[in-house]
């Protein structure tokens, strides 16, 4: 694609698949005259490039799920986008998928953007056989005659090491690992440009998880697609993702190449996440983080991490640190990033 053509499209240029800019997505409810706002995503900017696995890490209730719901364009009240841009290379406009006309959104979903969820049992219809579910999702998008479609499905299932016999099965007849592989097959069969994976292996045990992650990487590589991979497990990020964003209390606090982040984490929260992971061979358990996760209805002032941060100064309590770029391809939002430098 030429440079002018990319500029003319007004979407993200060149090798970018998704560009999110200053996104704010809040839950706003009003009950008995009391207004309540939960600022689950509060000023997030990020870009996801073609042909990469971008990891998103952070503890439960840090806004990870809200961010991916917003990106996928599945907003239900009370969640709404307050402001910010969401632009895809494969869809017009910068307002996000939920603002597209219904037929345009339908053309984009699954063909260009698909989704792998944590509980595959809740994705697959329990009353329909796997074949019927695959047909529901993909037949229309693929535009193939029935026989060719069936052959394409079987060939695709082979990529996740399932044979055609699973097509006859109901979801409950498959093991958790097989179901999650069916979910991956479902999400990738249309060769989408962009796949969102929300904790896809958290419910699996380690041996199965390793297989499933390997298959996901192989498919991503073969199709040169982009994956947004969300999990709180830093061990998975270390082995799978190319770049990594760390989220805390609705904001991105650090982002960079995964190897750089593990080698030299700059934000104190990132260092904590890496350091607190138990490892085989530890006889001493690592310390967890003190204090409770922040309440997003009433987040702390200044830097949101300051109540739990050992390096916090008076400035951190009043002023929110901006994203700085201390090294190539590495962003961090911390006034004390230099002090916290060094290996984890």
């Amino acid at each position, binding site marked *: 694609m030429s440079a002018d053509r990319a500029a003319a499209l007004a979407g993200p240029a060149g090798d970018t698949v998704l560009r999110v800019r200053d996104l704010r997505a809040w839950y706003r409810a009003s009950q008995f005259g009391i207004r309540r706002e939960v600022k689950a995503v509060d000023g997030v900017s990020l870009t996801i490039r073609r042909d990469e696995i971008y990891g998103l890490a952070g503890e439960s209730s840090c806004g990870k799920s809200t961010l991916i719901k917003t990106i996928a364009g599945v907003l239900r009240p009370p969640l709404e986008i307050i402001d910010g841009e969401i632009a895809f290379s494969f869809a017009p406009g910068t307002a996000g998928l939920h603002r597209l006309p219904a037929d345009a959104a339908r053309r984009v979903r699954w063909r260009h953007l698909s989704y792998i969820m944590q509980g595959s049992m809740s994705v697959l219809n329990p009353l329909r056989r796997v074949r019927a579910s695959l047909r529901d999702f993909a037949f229309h998008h693929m535009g193939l005659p029935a026989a060719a479609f069936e052959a394409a499905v079987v060939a695709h299932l082979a990529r996740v090491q399932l044979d055609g016999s699973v097509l006859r099965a109901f979801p409950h007849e498959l093991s958790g690992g097989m179901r999650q592989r069916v979910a991956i097959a479902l999400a990738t069969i249309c060769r989408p440009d962009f796949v969102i994976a929300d904790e896809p292996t958290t419910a699996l*045990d*380690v041996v*199965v998880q390793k297989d499933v992650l390997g298959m996901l990487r192989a498919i991503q590589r073969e199709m040169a697609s982009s994956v947004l991979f969300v999990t709180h497990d830093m*061990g998975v990020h270390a082995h799978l993702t190319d770049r990594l964003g760390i989220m805390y209390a609705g904001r991105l606090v650090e982002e960079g190449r*995964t190897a750089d982040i593990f080698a030299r984490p700059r934000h104190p929260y990132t260092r904590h996440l890496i350091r607190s992971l138990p490892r085989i061979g530890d006889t001493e*358990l690592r*310390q967890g983080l003190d204090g409770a996760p922040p309440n997003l209805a009433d987040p702390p002032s200044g830097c949101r991490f300051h109540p739990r941060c050992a390096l916090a100064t008076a400035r951190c309590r009043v002023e929110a640190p901006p994203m700085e770029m201390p090294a190539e391809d590495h962003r961090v939002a911390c006034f004390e990033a230099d002090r916290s430098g060094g290996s984890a």
Partner: protein
Amino acid sequence: MSVPLLELDAVGKTYTRGGLFARERIVAARDVRFALADGAREVFTIIGESGSGKTTIAKMILALERPSTGQVRFRGRDLTTLRSRADRHAFIGAVQPIFQNPFEAFNPLKRLERYLLTTCRRFTDARDEAGAMRAVDTALRQVGLSLAEIRGRHPHELSGGQLQRVAIARALISKPALIVADEPVSMVDASLRASIVGLFRRLTAELGLSIVYITHDLATAYAISDRILIMRKGEMAEAGDAKTVLAEPKHPYSRQLRDAVLQPLEPGQRPAFGR
């Protein structure tokens, strides 16, 4: 030799599924045997994939399921002979469970201290409100919380880690001799797991109880376990001293399990699924 605290003697469990014509038998556990000595203050870990029979074993220890073959004995008594109300009450007080998802274990509409106070009235001799409050506070302090912190709060107001601590405190109120913790940290953020699991280690030392810790997380198992049992497809694959088994696993499945754990890279190590 004194009577063991808990003894599983060739325990097996078979579930049958289906109707009269298409009956299918599923072996969830076969010939499982291990014993925990009385007063050993031990963390005994059962590890294995989903469907390996871990939870079935936990249910049999808690007398929620009857074994199909063999016997589960607590302080020498076969659990199937616990018939009277008094016997069952004493058993429940002595063997307490902690489950996987604290958000499912607590009623979302009830304030947390109501739970703890009810448990207190049933299992301790504190009859008045003030005495019960003191007992609840003591239990909460043992897990690093206090009554003042949780009073008047509902389960959704706490993080998963805090709520799991409350669940542990609830289990401690009846002063049990044995706690059965079934996947207690798999719903908890990886960064908080260590502190919860570390609590188990401390409780065994301070309160003199033993813990059956059921998990698929090898890293925390290594850190806190005295002995470990690796289960596969309902059978015991390998058992022994935790550090020895995990450092030099002998069974091929144990090795596979250990090699599948994803941890931050050591210097010079390549990522398993890098490009």
